[in-house]
């Protein structure tokens, strides 16, 4: 007979009602009743449940969910996880922290998931952090890149937050460093030395706003214009003309809340003489070319996985092909960056728990954490290793670098002719050369 107080999951029909070891039922009667029920109905089924959470209404979340499903299907075709069948439980965060917390509690307490993978919006991640830390369920972040994800949690109180990891993308402090490498590449290529920097007025861009201008100056490049834009900006004429007035050769723009289509259209109409680089989350969608009616041409964005345009590892191609076969007719027709990271996270988890020999996080979270820290996984988005507990970004995915110290697991893609995503940087991964408009 299973017993609540020891935290062993109790099963009722197909849904598992898991009650944490630190949970005790306040009313003794209720406790007795629940225990009895558990005893009658309980026979732990053999499934391993992978919980996924993301904004499923958006391409990013939908691509991530598809990728998680693909990974689970692939595992089940082989031996599952620890020879047990794997089931995906996916929940929609709606990008709302309150909704996400409800969904997460349901996944843990009713569905009895063994791991949670996902979260794209940083505030959603922030919203479920405390809960996830309290229940000890392994949590692999695959979307949000804000460094506070680990610096405010794992780094602050290791014992409490040790079950939180980020398997991708590299955090935005590291992304800012990667962006400097890319700026130097552009400087070498075109002789551009003057850069503008504009960003969503949102917390996720702060690592860029705080660091990137300084980093650029450090390597001898000039930052000639800086601005922050309220989410929902719709008049792009002054934005572009300010960049032009500042004589920038290129603008690094960081948009997730703002959709840069209007900027691109206005830029093209005026044939402004600067290139548009940086990070543009809406532009990462494989549907953005059609959505923007081709205005996407020439814009670049960094994104882990490089939209499948480059063979980052030997895993990249097979994953993208399998995704296209299964979901190529759906939206999104490519996994998007969160999909790459989510797909990898499922395997990272599998390897770790198989090494640990347990998925019982309530009893063995320390063992699972230790094994996650041992991760050395060749994933679709790159090599995955984690920072150790005592480093600056504990439990965060490490950046990979080439011989020159250039960050390689944050590639840059560009929309090129006929709506093709091409990887243009880093050079050893590039599927095409970086191109500029004819008016530049």
């Amino acid at each position, binding site marked *: 007979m299973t017993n609540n107080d020891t935290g062993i999951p109790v099963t*009722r029909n197909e849904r598992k*009602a898991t009650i944490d070891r*630190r*949970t*005790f*039922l*306040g*009313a003794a*009667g*209720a406790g007795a*009743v*629940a225990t009895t*029920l558990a005893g009658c109905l309980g026979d732990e089924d053999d499934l391993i449940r992978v919980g996924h959470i993301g904004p*499923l*209404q958006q391409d990013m979340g939908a691509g991530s969910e598809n990728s998680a499903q693909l990974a689970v299907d692939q595992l089940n075709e082989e031996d599952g996880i620890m020879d047990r069948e794997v089931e995906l439980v996916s929940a*929609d965060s*709606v990008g*709302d*922290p*309150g*909704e996400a*917390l*409800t969904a997460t*509690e*349901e996944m843990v*307490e*009713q569905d009895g998931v063994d791991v949670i993978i996902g979260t794209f919006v*940083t*505030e959603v991640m*922030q*919203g479920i*952090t*405390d*809960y996830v830390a*309290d229940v000890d369920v392994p949590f692999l972040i695959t979307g949000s890149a*804000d460094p*506070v994800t680990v610096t*405010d949690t794992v780094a602050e109180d290791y014992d409490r937050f040790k079950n939180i990891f980020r398997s991708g993308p590299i955090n935005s402090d590291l992304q800012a460093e990667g962006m400097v490498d890319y700026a130097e590449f552009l400087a070498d290529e075109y002789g551009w030395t003057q850069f503008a920097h504009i960003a969503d*007025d*949102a*917390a*996720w861009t702060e690592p860029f706003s705080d660091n990137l201008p300084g980093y650029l100056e450090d390597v001898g490049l000039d930052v000639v214009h800086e601005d922050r834009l*309220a989410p929902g900006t719709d008049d792009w004429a002054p934005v572009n003309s300010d960049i032009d007035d500042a004589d920038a050769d290129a603008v690094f723009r960081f948009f997730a809340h703002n959709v840069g289509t209007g900027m691109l259209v206005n830029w093209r109409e005026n044939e402004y003489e600067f290139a548009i680089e940086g990070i543009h989350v809406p532009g990462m969608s494989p549907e953005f070319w059609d959505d923007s009616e081709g205005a996407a041409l020439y814009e670049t964005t960094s994104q882990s996985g490089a939209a499948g345009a480059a063979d980052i590892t030997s895993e990249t191609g097979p994953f993208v092909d399998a995704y296209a076969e299964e979901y190529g007719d759906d939206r999104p027709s490519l996994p998007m960056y969160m999909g790459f990271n989510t797909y990898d996270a499922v395997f990272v988890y599998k390897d770790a728990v198989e090494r640990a020999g347990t998925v019982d996080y309530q009893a063995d979270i320390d063992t699972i954490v230790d094994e996650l820290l041992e991760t050395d996984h060749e994933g679709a988005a790159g090599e995955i290793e984690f920072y150790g507990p005592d480093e600056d970004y504990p439990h965060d995915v490490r950046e990979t670098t080439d011989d020159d110290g250039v960050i390689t697991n944050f590639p840059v893609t560009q929309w090129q002719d006929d709506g093709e995503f091409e990887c243009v940087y880093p050079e050893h991964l590039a599927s095409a050369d970086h191109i500029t408009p004819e008016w530049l």
Partner: protein
Amino acid sequence: MSSDTQTGGPLESVADGYNDRFGHLFGELNGPQFALLIGSLAVLLVAPVWTSLLGVGGLLRTLALASIWAILAMAWDIQSGYTGYISFGHAVLSGGAAYTTAMLVAHVNPDLPFLVTAPISVLAALVIGLVIAVPSLRLRGPYFSLVTFVAGLIFYQLTYAFSGYTGGELGQRVGRIEFELAGAQVTTFDPVTRYYVMLVPMLVIAVALLYVARSNVGMILIAIRENEEAVAAAGIDTTKFKIWSFVLSSIPMGVGGVLLAHFYGTVNPLNFLLVDRSIEIIAMAVVGGMSSILGPIGGAFLVIVLREEVLGVFGVTGRWVALWTVVLLVLVFARDGLFRKLWHVLGDWGRIDGGDDE
């Protein structure tokens, strides 16, 4: 009008016992009404037992959330419902309290105990309430509503404007409630404890607001709604009483805000200050029945249970469409609120049954 004249069954005699002792404080009830109240109370008090028996443990979370929103809906009701000065910005008060807790935890001391942050936060809600009420309650008609609405917009944008302090859209984590009560450690990590930590303040506030609403103060507030000139002509300073109603409202709003902050564990603009939150409070009060205190409780439980448990069949976003459609239907077909309707049906029933309640 009291017990002596009644000839009902055992239910009536119990209700009469209540009427004799408390009727003058909280309003008199007939048998069925009394049964509804006691029945609901019993169902709520033993919810951990029946939710676990029925295997719907998740419902406990929904009921805890509904308790918090019931506090907010009642608090809105004592001000807007009773005086007729409709506030569209009440989330500022709960959000203000929540953000006070968040700022204390983030910038003063992360280890400040709940028993310190909570009273300060409620006080902050009171101050914010006065800041809004004192200048705006001299306004009449739509201007008061507009001022409260705009106040809501300002507070929402402030969280972005001062994102260095507030965390912008990410908000600020505040964690769970932990305090010692009679030597025992109380933490809302446990779902059952969490439920009671949210339910008990709701019940206490309900009793307190019912008492006020049935008192002379409540009568004056209603009189202001019905005919402010007449009240003023009687020599009563209506502005003073309207400000009182805001004070009466701000305190429970603050309590609700603090509880909600710890329920979510994170305070952010989306879940606390977005204008939708103010409208939801109003919707709950209106669905239940404005200016009744008990109605908004029923409204809050109905709306939250519908939203979290029932309307999910329409999909994650579709359920909002369904929910607002329900609210619209209530507004069109049962303008006085579902629970007021139920209350009156029970009142009539009691009369037919033999009890003459008035």
